[in-house]
């Protein structure tokens, strides 16, 4: 046993040293672990900020004296008006003003003679924040207009209801819970992907790369067993996956701490115990990812081919998250026996604050490790095969 360990540790130390010297590979392994959580948090906090419409709205107005009643009505609805002169189109494109309400000079005249009186709302609705503001202003003016219209009908002795042939009643079921689900799914996807990102560069380098630089043949003429060599390589690859997962979880925790998403109806925070649980759950997927990537790379003919294959399996976490995100599959215990689906389910429970079920973790980790062990046995068996050493 100790002889197996000695040989394994020789390979492991050399692989770690070699990988650490490879700055570019380290960057591709660890940069996503740092950036993805930050990107995600920024995205959600931006969403939270744009949804936040309770603030007062500042509107640039041209010709406010033409419709004093309307302006007064809107002012009671938390809208503040600022007088404006200039070219609305240019200034909006330049980003100098957000919304411009233009009231033409003939407004009063048409309004009092009961003709439709035009007013103009200048905005750039491709910017979500201004779209929401324009919608709000539009809605307020519509309701002002219909209340005036109703009064005009009443004055003429007609029931205003006659003017509404069809009424649409909105029933919007988008609840806070479903939005929270989206945020949690995105987080699950990123932490699951981190394992794959982290180990891919060294998984490729230590297998397909080793063969491409012709160093595999000299390595294998040394008196170490295939088990020792493969185990040393494998452990070094997996440790980079583990490092990336650890960084992702910690950065996600810190990033969520620094923002408030409460206007999205959910404000997820990762406590220390949640982070520890997440890392426990992820450990098995780290081990599987490393084995899978090394297998793909050993079977690839070239370094490039290995990169494409491992790139493809980095997408697997997306597939694992998608069914539940789309609501196509109900979460159920059978998922625990399937690698990735199981980890996602456990992560979901932990992130929602339901805690970690030990039985679930054992079942999930057990089945994942079983598959990993099967792949690892194949790796050891094929290491000295002619196909792997000399290709073809």
């Amino acid at each position, binding site marked *: 046993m100790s002889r197996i360990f000695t040989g394994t540790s020789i390979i492991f130390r050399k692989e770690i040293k*070699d990988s650490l010297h490879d700055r570019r590979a380290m960057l591709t392994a660890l940069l996503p672990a740092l950036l993805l959580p930050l990107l995600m948090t920024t995205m959600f906090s931006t969403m939270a900020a744009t949804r936040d419409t309770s603030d007062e709205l500042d509107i640039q107005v041209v010709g406010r004296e033409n419709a004093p009643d309307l302006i007064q009505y809107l002012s009671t609805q938390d809208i503040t008006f600022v007088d404006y002169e200039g070219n609305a189109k240019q200034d909006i494109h330049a980003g100098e003003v957000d919304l411009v309400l233009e009231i033409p000079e003939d407004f009063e005249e048409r309004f009092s003679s009961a003709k439709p009186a035009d007013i103009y709302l200048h905005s750039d609705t491709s910017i979500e924040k201004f779209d929401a503001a324009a919608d709000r202003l539009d809605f307020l003016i519509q309701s002002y207009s219909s209340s005036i219209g109703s009064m005009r009908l009443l004055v003429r002795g007609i029931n205003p209801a006659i003017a509404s042939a069809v009424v649409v009643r909105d029933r919007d079921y988008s609840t806070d819970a479903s939005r929270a689900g989206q945020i949690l799914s995105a987080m699950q996807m990123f932490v699951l992907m981190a394992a794959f990102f982290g180990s891919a560069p060294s998984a490729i380098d230590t297998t397909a790369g080793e063969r491409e630089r012709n160093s595999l043949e000299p390595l294998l*003429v040394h008196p170490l067993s295939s088990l020792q060599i493969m185990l040393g390589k494998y452990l070094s690859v997996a440790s980079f996956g583990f490092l990336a997962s650890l960084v992702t979880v910690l950065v996600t925790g810190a990033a969520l701490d620094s923002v408030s998403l409460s206007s999205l109806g959910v404000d997820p925070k990762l406590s220390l115990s949640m982070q520890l649980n997440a890392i426990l759950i992820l450990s098995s997927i780290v081990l599987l990812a490393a084995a899978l990537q090394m297998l793909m790379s050993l079977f690839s003919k070239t370094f490039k081919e290995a990169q494409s294959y491992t790139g493809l399996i980095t997408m697997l976490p997306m597939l694992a998250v998608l069914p539940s995100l789309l609501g196509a599959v109900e979460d159920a215990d059978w998922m625990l026996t399937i690698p990735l689906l199981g980890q996602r389910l456990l992560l979901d429970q932990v992130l929602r604050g339901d805690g970690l079920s030990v039985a679930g973790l054992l079942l999930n980790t057990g089945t994942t490790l079983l598959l990993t062990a099967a792949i690892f046995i194949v790796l050891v068996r094929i290491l000295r095969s002619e196909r792997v050493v000399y290709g073809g």
Partner: protein
Amino acid sequence: MIEVRNLCKSFGEVKAVDDLSLLAKDGCITGLLGPNGAGKTTTLRTIYGLQKPDQGQILIDGSDVSKNLIAAVAKIGVFPDSVGLYDRLTTREHLQFYAEMQGISGADLDTCIAATQNYFNIDDLLDRRCKGFSHGQKMKVALSRALIHSPQNLILDEPTNGLDVMSIRMLRELLVRLRNEGRCILFSSHVMQEVSALCDHIYIMADGSVVAEGTPEQLCTQAETASLEEAFISLIGSEEGIAL
């Protein structure tokens, strides 16, 4: 001592090695000469265990390669047909790594690395990363790798490929020295000059089989020619794939 008995190896329909037997003795430089594609590399690869023979037996100092690969490869140093170094490791890190794999540890590591200085001077290369080394420099590291554990048997596949004159001279001197120390040296080449200048015993290969063997003098007698070069050509039956 390396013994190959009735070795056969096919790749699909192609018989790369066909019933080949050879004996490389201690204190002797044994050469495997043949044109490109004669099966020299395949023969050497089966000797160090990375290609599995279809038939036949290979013994290295009595250890059977197909039965106990690890014990057998522990007795050889290999210089494969490509140097295959790690760009990001220094020469010293390379040699430490390979020495550790040969079971050398602790203070012996430094002793072994220092001992390679007996063969050639790599002092200025020791703490440089191998990226950007010239071919000759890489070869020095690869040869040091093969010799780090002072193996009794040394196998070299086309060692002079792509080398400059200085490096070839250095290699020749090294091989003669190791022979005089009583080691067993087996190397392949398609360059007649190399083989005739160095070898005590020569196997001439063509189409996967040994077509002739013996000392240089025996080969001349056998082919009824005055020079070894003419003997090679007459024994192989063609000049194709052979270099002077």
